[in-house]
């Protein structure tokens, strides 16, 4: 059992939990994820780690309530327990001094790109951050991102904070400005990552994405997270979650993410009554 040590509501449907996981905290690196199973009947849910404290033995996760498991996870209070937390899983982000880097976070993806951005900033890169969400309420980690970037651009679909529009718009402007960009990382909904990659491809700037396919064991055993990358089948859980975005078949990924939409509704109904 793994205890919840702290809880923060970041937005009406976005929650941060700090978990007591000393062994994982010692090992985890930016870009890696954990599997969470709430209870005996629970499913195995992959969540990318938002932050960690090796000394205090904690990791934090940030999630948006979209299905039964995330809804129940959002109801957990401090001192309550989670049955299983497994990790660190997947490959970590490659952190090096690239030069000028753009880090793009969409929705709760911002919570995940935050530790990556911090590591790149600390490695001496000049970092531009672009964070976007549907509206002001869903924007998270803006202050934290501000602190680890040389420049931060905020966008919302409805213009309730920052620039009105999508993250791809300021991205394109930067690329068009002729300034040399050495490396780009984007983490967010699959559709956002797809369009970020479409935007950067003509400029031939390497663009890394962190994929979020459906997973089960997350140890390379079941293959449900398979995704086409550069014409080959890769497993998101062990070969990823990060891949060269220009090689990823996003349409197939997006299609595979829809596999259990009907079942998710049935599942939700069991707690909504």
């Amino acid at each position, binding site marked *: 059992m793994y205890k919840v040590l702290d809880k923060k509501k970041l937005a009406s449907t976005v929650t941060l939990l700090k978990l007591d996981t000393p*062994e*994982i905290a010692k*090992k985890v690196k930016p870009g890696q994820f954990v599997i969470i*199973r709430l209870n005996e*009947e*629970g*499913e*195995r849910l992959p969540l990318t780690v938002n932050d960690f404290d090796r000394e205090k033995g904690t990791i934090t996760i940030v999630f948006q309530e979209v299905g*039964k*498991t995330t809804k129940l996870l959002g109801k957990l209070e401090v001192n309550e327990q989670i*049955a*299983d*937390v*497994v*990790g*660190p*899983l997947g490959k970590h982000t490659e952190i090096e001094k690239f030069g000028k880097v753009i880090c793009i976070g969409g929705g709760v993806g911002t919570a995940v790109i935050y530790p990556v951005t911090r590591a790149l900033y600390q490695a001496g890169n000049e970092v531009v951050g672009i964070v976007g969400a549907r509206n002001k309420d869903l924007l998270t980690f803006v202050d934290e991102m501000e602190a680890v970037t040389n420049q931060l651009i905020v966008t919302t679909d409805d213009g309730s904070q920052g620039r009105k529009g999508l993250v791809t718009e300021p991205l394109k402007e930067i690329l068009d400005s002729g300034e040399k960009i050495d490396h780009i990382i984007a983490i967010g909904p699959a559709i956002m990552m797809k369009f970020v990659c479409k935007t950067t491809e003509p400029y031939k700037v390497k663009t890394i994405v962190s994929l979020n396919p459906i997973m*089960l*064991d997350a*140890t*390379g*055993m*079941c*293959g*449900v997270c*398979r*995704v*086409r990358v550069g014409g080959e*089948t890769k497993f998101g859980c*062990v070969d990823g979650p990060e891949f060269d975005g220009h090689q990823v*078949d996003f349409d*197939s990924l997006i*299609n*595979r993410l*829809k*596999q*259990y939409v009907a*079942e*998710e509704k*049935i*599942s939700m*109904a*069991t707690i909504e009554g």
Partner: protein
Amino acid sequence: MADEGKKAKKTIIPDRVHMAEQAAEERVSNFKEVPLGYTEDQAAEEAKRCLQCKKAACSTGCPVEINIPEFIKLVAEKNFQEAAKKIKSTNSLPAVCGRVCPQEIQCESKCIVGKKGDPVSIGGLERFVADWERDHGTVEAPPRPQARNKKVAVVGSGPAGLTVASDLAKLGYGVTLFEALHKTGGVLVYGIPEFRLPKAIVQAEVDFVESLGVEIKTNALIGKLYTIPELMESGYDAVFIGIGAGGPMFMNIPGEELNGVYSANEFLTRSNLMKAYLFPEYDTPIKKNKKVAVVGAGNVAMDSVRTAIRLGADEVYLVYRRSEKEMPARNEEIERAKEENAILKLLTNPVRLIGNDKGWVTGMECIKMELGEPDDSGRRRPVPIKGSEFIIEVDDVIMALGTNANPLLTQATPGLELNKWGYVVADEETCATSIKGVYAGGDIVTGSATVILAMGAGRKAAKAIDSYLSTSA
């Protein structure tokens, strides 16, 4: 032997006592076990068929060397408690082995009674004894030996790992069993379905191993949480790798990324480990599709076919490129699948999967095959018949083509010698690997095999680890 042979001729041995089972029409709509087990009287009666051979050939056919005549004698005397102790002195998982061992090619294949008629049902008796002990609540751990000042890390809690762990704990070593999943048992819990191996029974046998003093750590993916060198540095004197051959194989044909296409590992893990057949009571979903094709013909394919039938499919096809004679599954499993109305599409090979505009699989294009000259495996090579393509309408495809070595741990272990397929190179007798103090056994060495062969490897490794730790400073 000559003596016993003569005796066998003189004695009229009655027919094997039939074990009752759920009828096919009933069992296809539940996940309960199919064979129902012997009663006490039936077990004693079956045990009396044993000739009590002095040189027991049956025991030589057992990879974990159970003293078969002795435990059967105790069953014949209805001394079930002692029979259980006798088996457990060499096998910690009798309720599992009694159910899933291929006795017909091991102990029972050597049984003298089997030379005429059916051999003694050694598997049925082993199962009975283990179930009797559990049902009577008399399972007790043997007395703890004096603790030794050496620690062993066992990686993977499947049949190989459980055997190494219990054998070494019985010798007094401090043993930690690391399991990546949230439940202990490996393939026994994620792979083999409830109707063949009830999970409560696996748990009871895992509990027994734990009662020997083995420390079990679930949610511990070695290779990520700790590497093997880190385990050695943190105070383990030896490590056993028994991680199974976990990676799924696909055919690399067009359309495998379509929705509705699964590896057997995924399909069975959903149903068995995550109990998706009880969705939405359990949160993990599984598709209850109507026209299912399972590709492959091993035991895992049979398990997939029979699971799909129980989930309510109307038509379940078993698609295999060779003929029935070459099917690698146990006969018993093939027969049960047929009784449950599996539709065999033999000498048939999928060439592509067809999907609709929503990205779901709707059909499987296959080609007819014929058998040509024998290949390296000695089986006749299937050759496609030109122009024989046809389409099977399906809404679910399960690839049960075998597994390959999962590289997660092996790649994180510098100096560990692997063969060209990525399996660990280990000594056949001692299970020693290229790293001093590191041993390996089971599917990660042999590729997909059986529960009992993995247990046999575990037994050998435990002996070798004991001798290594007894001689090393």
